[in-house]
């Protein structure tokens, strides 16, 4: 029979589906990465993984599907991500659980393990961060622990890849072996009640998939599903009074009116017992750990916030200054590349499409890759060192005044990189109202795609010394506007009680260069990929719209004039005037002219308004559109081709300020809007967001334009 099975379905016979479960920030995603060479996003704070991710790989003739689940402290369904994990474990089919445990914090991690043990599933425990535990002088007797729990325990280190093979071997062995009943033991008082219920179930030969002990524990823990099942059974009438008595006894024993609290205490004392048996710590703990020493400076009541602001300021200074170094080379490369390619194309239209459309557009976006990389490195450091949670701690009091939650800081900072993961990471907020409020504010945190616009404009209007500060100011004022908007929304649309703030502060970790490299590389490649695909198409579209329809009459009229021109200077002036006239009567010109009245009060000409409208698709398109529009028709002389010079010549300072204000506030991009709609839970929220951001962007840009004009 067995052989037959293998013949008909060899794939399924060797397929093991593993659910990876553990408390937040114990290195689940990193473990998957080292097992399978996948590149899941890892960081050092709770809530990096917010949705389940599947990774497939083969090992010793077995096909593995590993499901990386969001970290959960306990099965309390406190946040959305915890609900994802709990629901998956209860409702989906999988063969085995790998419970990942942080070896340096065994007792706390076992709290979840004991809940998993009462689920009657096959479990393998991965004692992760073994290398760190060794450094701290912690020695865990894994063999003895396996025996005590009845669960194989394997020491691993996801960071050094040590013990990974042993872990998979243990998974295979556990998968092949018959299941053992878990060895979770409660206090005498609870064990007595369990025995009584088991006896009753046995007497009535109750039919259950799980063991009677398991059913009894679930009934005592008020497990809804078990209740639903047994409720329809005739034995319920007799069982009910027994259960009520039992619960009363347990609650009395624990001096609590909450059965869940009582069970948590039960688990906790079981875990304390286990830890006392298996864990030895050689070195006496220092009075202050390194983390506490660093914390005494970084979260100092007085210096904490200034230090944080200094870090952010330095990041933006670096972004501008270091980022500017390779920019000239990239710029030179693209104009050389455009000229070289252009020389090989005979057809005027095609050459213009490739050089002025494709290369100018994509080049304008690629130009900012150095800045983007620096920003991403900064964010990756913030995420992976553990500093992120400290800032959440520092800012909670301040954020709270504006109706935001300290933990809102995490999605908001992620928003500086890209709004899409930021919308996703808002799931760490428990309360729906707080989460929606945060979702609405994320857009105010300028994402990486807007950075090119800021770099371009601050470089065009300020000296290199000032530009970094201007960049920092733009970001900070965006964040400030976000806070004010949060306060307004909190007082109007999202009234309600505040969510409690209870958050783990992870240990500081020095991230490996490899980890930073992978995170930054993945994000940068995404940016480049977008430049090569979406932006390339958009640039060609913008080129087409700005070149057609052709106006032959205008062209002949001007070429006659140009021929008659007496000197070079007049010739160039005429050519430029022809180009801008041609542009004005193109499709794009018509669109721009049509919407110009709307943007005139903000001091924006039709080119800028077209760039803003194109920016609704993606913020990179703003720069590429400006690149195409200004490389086609403007008074550019040959020596000064760079876009930033063109902009400083063609756009007044006040208009530029208004332009930046709009970019800062209005809708992030098409893809982000889709994710926002999904995370907020309805299309109506998208229209709220659209209306909210448009109104705020328009009125503030109007103010900014007029105030700047008055001052100048």
């Amino acid at each position: 029979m067995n052989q037959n099975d293998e013949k008909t379905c060899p794939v399924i016979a060797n397929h093991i589906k593993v659910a990876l479960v553990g408390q937040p920030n114990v290195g689940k995603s990193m473990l998957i990465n080292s097992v399978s060479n996948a590149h899941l996003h890892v960081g050092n704070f709770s809530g990096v993984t917010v949705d389940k991710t599947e990774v497939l790989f083969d090992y010793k003739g077995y096909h593995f599907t590993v499901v990386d689940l969001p970290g959960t402290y306990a099965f309390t369904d406190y946040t959305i991500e915890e609900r994802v994990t709990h629901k998956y474990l209860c409702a989906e089919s999988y063969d085995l659980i790998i419970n990942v445990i942080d070896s340096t914090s065994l007792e706390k991690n076992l709290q979840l393990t004991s809940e998993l043990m009462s689920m009657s599933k096959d479990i393998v425990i991965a004692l992760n961060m073994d290398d760190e535990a060794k450094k701290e002088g912690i020695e865990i007797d894994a063999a003895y622990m396996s025996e005590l729990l009845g669960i194989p325990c394997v020491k691993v280190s996801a960071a050094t890849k040590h013990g990974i093979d042993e872990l998979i071997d243990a998974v295979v062995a556990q998968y092949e072996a018959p299941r053992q009943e878990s060895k979770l033991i409660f206090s005498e008082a609870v064990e007595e009640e369990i025995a009584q219920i088991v006896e009753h179930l046995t007497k009535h030969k109750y039919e259950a998939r799980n063991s009677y002990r398991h059913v009894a524990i679930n009934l005592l823990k008020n497990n809804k599903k078990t209740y639903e099942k047994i409720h329809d059974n005739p034995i319920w009438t007799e069982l009910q009074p027994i259960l009520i008595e039992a619960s009363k006894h347990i609650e009395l024993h624990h001096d609590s009116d909450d059965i869940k609290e009582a069970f948590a205490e039960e688990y906790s004392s079981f875990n304390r017992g286990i830890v006392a048996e298996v864990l030895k710590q050689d070195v006496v703990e220092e009075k202050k750990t390194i983390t506490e020493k660093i914390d005494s400076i970084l979260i100092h009541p007085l210096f904490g916030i200034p230090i944080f602001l200094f870090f952010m300021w330095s990041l933006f200074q670096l972004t501008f200054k270091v980022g500017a170094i390779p920019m000239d080379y990239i710029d030179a490369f693209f104009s050389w590349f455009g000229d070289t390619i252009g020389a090989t194309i005979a057809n005027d239209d095609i050459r213009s499409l490739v050089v002025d459309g494709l290369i100018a557009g994509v080049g304008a976006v690629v130009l900012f890759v150095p800045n983007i990389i620096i920003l991403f490195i900064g964010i990756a450091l913030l995420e992976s060192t553990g500093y992120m949670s400290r800032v959440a701690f520092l800012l909670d009091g301040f954020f709270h005044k504006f109706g935001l939650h300290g933990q809102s800081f995490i999605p908001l900072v992620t928003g500086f990189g890209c709004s899409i993961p930021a919308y996703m990471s808002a799931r760490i907020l428990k309360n729906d109202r707080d989460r929606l409020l945060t979702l609405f504010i994320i857009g105010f945190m300028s994402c990486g795609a807007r950075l090119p616009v800021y770099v371009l404009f601050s470089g065009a209007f300020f000296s290199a010394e000032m530009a970094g500060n201007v960049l920092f100011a733009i970001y900070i004022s965006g964040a400030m506007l976000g806070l004010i908007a949060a306060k307004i929304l909190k007082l109007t649309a999202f009234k309600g009680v505040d969510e409690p703030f209870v958050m783990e502060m992870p240990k500081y970790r020095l991230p490996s260069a490899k980890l930073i490299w992978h995170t930054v590389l993945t994000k940068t490649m995404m940016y480049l990929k977008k430049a090569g695909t979406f932006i390339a198409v958009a640039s060609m579209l913008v080129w087409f719209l700005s070149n057609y329809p052709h106006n032959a009459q205008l062209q002949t009229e001007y070429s006659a004039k140009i021929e008659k021109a007496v000197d070079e200077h007049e010739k160039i002036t005429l050519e430029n005037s022809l180009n801008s006239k041609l542009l004005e009567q193109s499709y794009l010109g018509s669109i721009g002219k049509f919407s110009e009245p709307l943007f005139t009060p903000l001091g924006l000409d039709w080119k800028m308004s077209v760039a803003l409208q194109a920016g609704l698709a993606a913020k990179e398109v703003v720069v590429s559109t400006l690149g195409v529009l200004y490389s086609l028709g403007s008074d550019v002389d040959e020596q000064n081709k760079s876009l930033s010079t063109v902009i400083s010549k063609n756009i007044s300072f006040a208009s530029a300020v208004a332009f930046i204000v709009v970019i800062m506030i209005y809708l992030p991009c098409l893809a982000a809007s889709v994710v926002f709609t999904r995370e907020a839970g309805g299309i109506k929220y998208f229209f709220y967001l659209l209306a909210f951001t448009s109104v705020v962007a328009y009125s503030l840009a109007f103010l900014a334009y007029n105030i700047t004009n008055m001052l100048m």
Partner: protein
Amino acid sequence: MKTLIECNKGCKVIVLKLNAPLELKQRLISFGIMKEANIEVLEHAPRKSTIEVKVGKMRIALRAEEARLIEVEDI
């Protein structure tokens, strides 16, 4: 009756009772803040709006409102 928010930096206490609503209580318990747990206060944010405590080996940030719900006693 002393609560956690009244403790100063560096003080060590034992938890007597959690007066939090059900959901929050479970959250605190899953962080190890439960009856008979030892807690050390590590740090205060400005004006005690948020505090950092140590339970076992875990460092936890709590807002003043939540710390007020945790009844404690000096060790």
